[in-house]
């Protein structure tokens, strides 16, 4: 009797586990699902009517902009009936690579001038990129900050499991800059491949702390607790935005960039934790 119960119980547990895992994966893959959305812009191009906007505007934006840009996209569609904003969120470096590779997009907003330079150097931008927000680093700790982390120096305690972004990605480069500026030596347990992966390790309570962007801590809600540190002032990322040369819908692209830079757009972005330029 008990034996049969146990036998059926175990596969169920395994199945439940699999479902959880699948959910987790689909949640994180949705941010960089680009190829399916960026093909519709070409058909609906209209440049003749300058005051009456219509058609689709395709925006490639850094993953950290996901929450705020989605909100702005809805506002844009409401203000200009007949338009549609499609986004492709992902790592700035891979987005830049796909733009130089010929991906059809109207606007590019990246998380660092370095990744923007990939696009401008290739001659794919129209005009000069403008910095529209800045992002600062913050320490993400477990909810309630059980390890009482109050400064960047606290992270160097050997009892703590700290994850950083890899030095090849912007958030890792920024964290290294802040550590170098304060002459601290920090040995993490892992160099994660992007900022969301670093944050996830804290959300899952596998790591005690991570150095991520302020906006990521904000977006994670109460799953992590943010700790500001003064050294982050030495490593602030500028976010540039630009209209692309091959834009199919230049009028709408210009209008979207204007919205991002407007007082209304800046309000949405600062609420998400971004700093004004």
């Amino acid at each position, binding site marked *: 009797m008990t034996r049969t119960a146990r036998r059926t119980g175990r596969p169920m547990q395994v199945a439940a586990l*699999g479902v*959880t*895992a699948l959910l987790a*994966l689909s949640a994180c893959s949705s941010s960089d699902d680009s190829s399916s959305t960026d093909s519709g812009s070409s058909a609906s191009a209209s440049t003749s009517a300058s005051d009456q906007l219509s058609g689709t505007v395709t925006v490639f934006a850094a993953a950290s902009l996901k929450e705020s840009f989605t909100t702005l996209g809805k506002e844009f569609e409401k203000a200009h009936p007949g338009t549609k904003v499609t986004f492709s969120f992902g790592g700035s470096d891979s987005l830049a690579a796909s733009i130089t590779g010929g991906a059809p997009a109207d606007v590019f907003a990246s998380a660092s001038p370095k990744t923007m330079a990939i696009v401008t150097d290739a001659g794919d931008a129209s005009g000069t990129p403008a910095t529209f927000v800045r992002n600062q680093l913050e320490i993400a700790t477990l909810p309630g900050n059980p390890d009482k982390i109050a400064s960047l120096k606290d992270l160097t305690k050997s009892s703590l499991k700290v994850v950083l972004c*890899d030095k*090849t*990605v912007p958030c890792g480069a920024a964290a290294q800059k802040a550590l170098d500026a304060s002459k601290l030596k920090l040995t993490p347990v892992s*160099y994660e491949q992007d900022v969301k992966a670093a944050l996830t*390790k804290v959300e899952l309570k*596998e790591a005690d702390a991570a150095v991520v962007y302020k906006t990521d801590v904000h977006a994670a809600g109460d799953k992590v607790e943010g700790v500001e540190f003064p050294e982050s002032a030495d490593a602030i990322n500028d976010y540039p935005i630009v209209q692309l040369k091959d834009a199919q819908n230049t009028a709408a692209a210009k209008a979207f960039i204007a919205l991002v830079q407007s007082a209304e757009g800046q309000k949405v972005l600062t609420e998400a934790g971004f700093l004004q330029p």
Partner: protein
Amino acid sequence: MTVPTDRSGAAADTIRGGLRRRRVRAQVRGVPLPLLVPALIGVAFLVVPLIALLVRAPWRSLPELLTSAEVWQALRLSLVCATAATAVSLVVGVPLAWLLARVEFPGRGLLRALVTLPLVLPPVVGGVALLMALGRNGIVGKTLDSWFGVTLPFTTAGVVVAEAFVAMPFLVISVEGTLRAADPRYEEAAATLGASRFTAFRRVTLPLIAPGIAAGAVLAWARALGEFGATITFAGNFPGRTQTMPLAVYLALQSDPEAAIALSLVLLAVSVAVLAGLRDRWMTAG
């Protein structure tokens, strides 16, 4: 199976003549185009990327790229972890395969499906599942942590766990297939002569299925060597501790594609070396 041997055999046969020559000629002339063309496309598809890797390799700066301590660290870690994962798979996987092949019990089909699930599961999902089970906060990992003070994520042992999770099904499937093909009457004969079931397994079955075990172990080892998704998700990425070659290749690709190509070449060389080293055993086993 081996084309080169057949061709040299054909050359010898042309001189000698006879029945085999006719068969060989039929082989060459009788291949229908609808089969030959897709087959050649298939060959090109599989081989061209490897050639491209060689063509684009930064041969001049290669010695410098490959002598860095980081590369050797990653390569050594990869080899050690893949071998450890294969050992774990052998210790657990062979008995499991025997259970699936030789013991009748209800739910065997379901068990087999579950055991081989990591074969089709995206490795990243495997990594997440491992975190849920064996992470510091996982359903098993919590106990491991509080009772023994053992945490697996971010450790070399974690890499071995992740690789074994992904690679073991290859071994189980291979060994189970060999067991099913092996004649159970040998074991029955051993039993009638007074051997216990375990002795029969050790003295009769094991030598009988050794080629299958070897083939499965090679498959599992190769899979573990190339494992990326589960490793980076479960064990993280830290040079010398959890950064295996595939992780090093991926991260190098973001900043330094030339280094990534160089690292890929090392993995390619290791794979070719293993295939070449095992060729004889592999072919006779197949």
